[in-house]
């Protein structure tokens, strides 16, 4: 009993360390693969670490029009995402944080991070920050609705809405490939791309574009604050990839209480993240950014797909019992 608890604690610590330590690497892999796909040589995989270190050594500036809360928003955003990243299972199920990993809690924490970033964008009273904030608010409206209907679909299939429980249920029960899960996957991919600020809704490598969203809210930040905000973006990407991975690719996940299953789980987690990073890079290279007012339609389709997934489940009557 005590040994199990100890192993679960170890697994949780390992998960947190890997999540926090390797989130920049994941971002680096995506950018480098993207550059390769475009025929460029691209930066080294570890470039994000160098960027973060550079920001650490830079002076932190605050605009004179900002309030005393200016430096609180990056901290709030990064903390909300860090907690969420500890809740989402990565290489293993049954972490100590598993009972907390309710998808609605994770949704709320993502919302908290979003609100903090938006308030940071409104701090200095500059036009770009405000524009980024309203775009984020607009996208959030549709993304959250879509995510909740998809969540219902998972809840009906797995009889639980904790990510840990869903991963366990999808890995062990014979769910099979169904149209519903396909729709749910499409919907959650659309939401994930929007939330992490990737093409087609936002361009992560675009600075000072008129239509930028996430970058627009960071324009007044520098030094330590910018480090936190950039790190939050990296955490968000790692979190979404782990989330999608543990729901749709739960095979081979280790069990926290069984230390012998850890190496396999770690290896498979790395492979899954690598494959998703490659898929993201290829997708980003092959598609273009949308106009701002096309995004609600894009996410509206995601919401409808999520609803259709639920309705197909009801019609097929695979629920109940």
């Amino acid at each position: 009993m005590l040994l199990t608890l100890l192993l679960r604690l170890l697994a949780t610590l390992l998960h947190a360390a890997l999540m926090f330590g390797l989130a920049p690497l994941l971002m680096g892999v995506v950018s480098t693969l993207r550059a390769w796909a475009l025929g460029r040589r691209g930066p080294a995989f570890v470039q994000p670490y160098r960027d973060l270190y550079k920001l650490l050594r830079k002076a932190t500036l605050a605009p004179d029009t900002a309030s005393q809360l200016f430096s609180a928003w990056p901290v709030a955003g990064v903390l909300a995402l860090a907690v969420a990243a500890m809740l989402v299972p990565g290489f293993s199920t049954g972490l100590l944080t598993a009972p907390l990993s309710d998808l609605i809690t994770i949704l709320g924490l993502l919302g908290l991070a979003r609100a903090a970033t938006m308030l940071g964008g409104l701090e200095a009273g500059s036009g770009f920050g405000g524009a980024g904030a309203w775009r984020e608010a607009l996208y959030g409206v549709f993304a959250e609705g879509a995510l909740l209907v998809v969540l219902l679909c998972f809840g009906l299939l797995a009889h639980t809405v904790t990510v840990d429980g869903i991963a366990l249920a999808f890995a062990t029960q014979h769910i099979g490939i169904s149209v519903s899960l396909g729709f749910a996957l499409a919907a959650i991919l659309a939401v994930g791309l929007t939330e992490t600020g990737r093409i087609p809704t936002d361009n992560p490598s675009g600075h000072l574009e008129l239509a930028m969203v996430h970058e627009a809210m960071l324009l007044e930040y520098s030094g330590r604050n910018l480090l936190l905000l950039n790190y939050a973006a990296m955490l968000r990407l790692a979190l979404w990839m782990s989330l999608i991975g543990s729901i749709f690719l739960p095979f081979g996940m280790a069990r926290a209480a069984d230390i012998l299953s850890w190496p396999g789980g770690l290896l498979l987690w790395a492979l899954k993240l690598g494959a998703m990073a490659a898929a993201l890079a290829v997708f980003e290279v092959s598609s273009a950014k949308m106009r701002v007012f096309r995004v609600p339609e894009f996410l509206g389709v995601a919401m409808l797909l999520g609803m259709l997934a639920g309705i197909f489940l009801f019609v097929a009557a695979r629920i109940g019992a």
Partner: protein
Amino acid sequence: MTPSFALYVGLPGQGMHLHLDALSLLFLGILLPQVVAGAMAGMRKSVTFWVFALGMGLALAAADAFTLIFGFELMSAASWLLVLRGDQKPATLYVGTAIFSAACLIPAVFLPAGPLAFLLIVLGAGAKAGLAPLHFWLPRAHPAPPAGVSALMSGGMVKVALYVIIRYAFVVLAPAAQPWWGGVLVAAGAASVLIGALRAMLEGELKTVLACSTVEHVGLITVGLGIALRGKAMDDATMAGLGLQAALLYAVAHGLYKPLLFIGAGEVKHGVGTTALDWLGGLVRGMPKLGLLMLAGAAGMSAMPLGPGFAPEFLLLHAAIAAAGSGGIIARIGFTALLAVLGVGAALALGAAVRLFGIGFLGRPRTLQAAAAEEARRGPLAGMALLGALCVPVALLPGLVLNLLTPVILELAPQAQTPPLAYAPLSLAVLAGLVAGAGWLALRRYGVRGTREVAAWNGGFGKAPPWLPFGDPAAQPSATGFAEPIGRAIGRGLLAPGGADPAEAFLLAPLQRLHTRGVRLAERIRRATIRQRLAFVFAALVVFLLALGLGEGS
């Protein structure tokens, strides 16, 4: 354990009876801090305010229908006088709605238990609570009176109306309850959520934003009640328990942060002279305490995790998911759509709270008055601090609060199951604290310390000229501009043309046209000449005789 009192006034031969059970005590408990805070916010010397509070207390403690209606109408009349003190036009609309509400409630409480009584109760109390489609008066009337009264109207009066719905739907009419009663509540609640949240996002006036957000929260509470009522009628213990937990916890939380926000809005009015968001900006520099308290209230209003509003939202979503897992296919599809509506509503509420705080309290001042605003007065600030302090246990220990609610839930639905809450804010706070500690150590060890204040970069525009000390006020995001894209993306589909509230455009405007037409008709009859009148009487006589003759003949 349940004390009863008889008062020797009231109906001849009957008197008035008070009875305090768990439900009444809960709602009295919700009411008390608001009354105290309202009194601290400057309403202490107003007799009408105390009559208003007395009416609410009487309605909540009533043991017979007469006392309930008496207290309810006392509350309506006193609040009408208070609204009238602020503004005359919404007061007329308000008193009209109050009369409609009384006209539904008075027959309903004396009818035998059945669908008609239930529908009349929902219409009457729903109109008072601001339930769609009878919510149109609320965003007009709630902002009109002084802040302390607005706070009590938004946090307390709508709760009294909801109490009437709960009391009748779950206790008095319980023997006749059917699952579709819950469906009615869920539908009305979902409509309120959508309209309230959308209008809270679009309105440009601080107190109106808060009033629209009240419509949304009343909708959320009603959705919880509807799910619970449906679960109770279908004998589904989980649904009934989750729905009631969500609704009652929402009532508790909303009764704390909404009055806080309203009192804060009053102080903004006092300090700046206006509550139009487009005339504020940068207030948190001049009024730091007020700003922080408003931030806490906004966190509750937008249901952020670790805030007071998240635990009820969490329970409500779980209740909706549980409800979608049972029942017929149409109901299930309906609950799927409900989840989408709740998601959109939650995100809109988040946007509205960010807009309220980000435009009003952050950024640069948009007017000289906003730049010169000084810290709020001590009394209102103390009232807000009281409410804010009471928010802390709701935010961090929702499990304990739910334990306190269990007797009420068992009184309303004896079969209800109340599982422990799966959301543990304290654990989340501990995790966040660990990360914060580690991060702080790392930044301190390796980072460059200190922050230098410089002119805002502002996309390269640089520093504003000296005659514009806060930069060009027109060159920063405005509340209107912030909301416009959302109005364009979803407002078009949900609101009437021109951005008006659908209830106003499709319910109030036709009623008004009908009224005008009726007045014209009456005027024509009044102005009829003696010949026309005689002809009318003669025609009526002929028709009457004809009908009589035909009736005899057959």
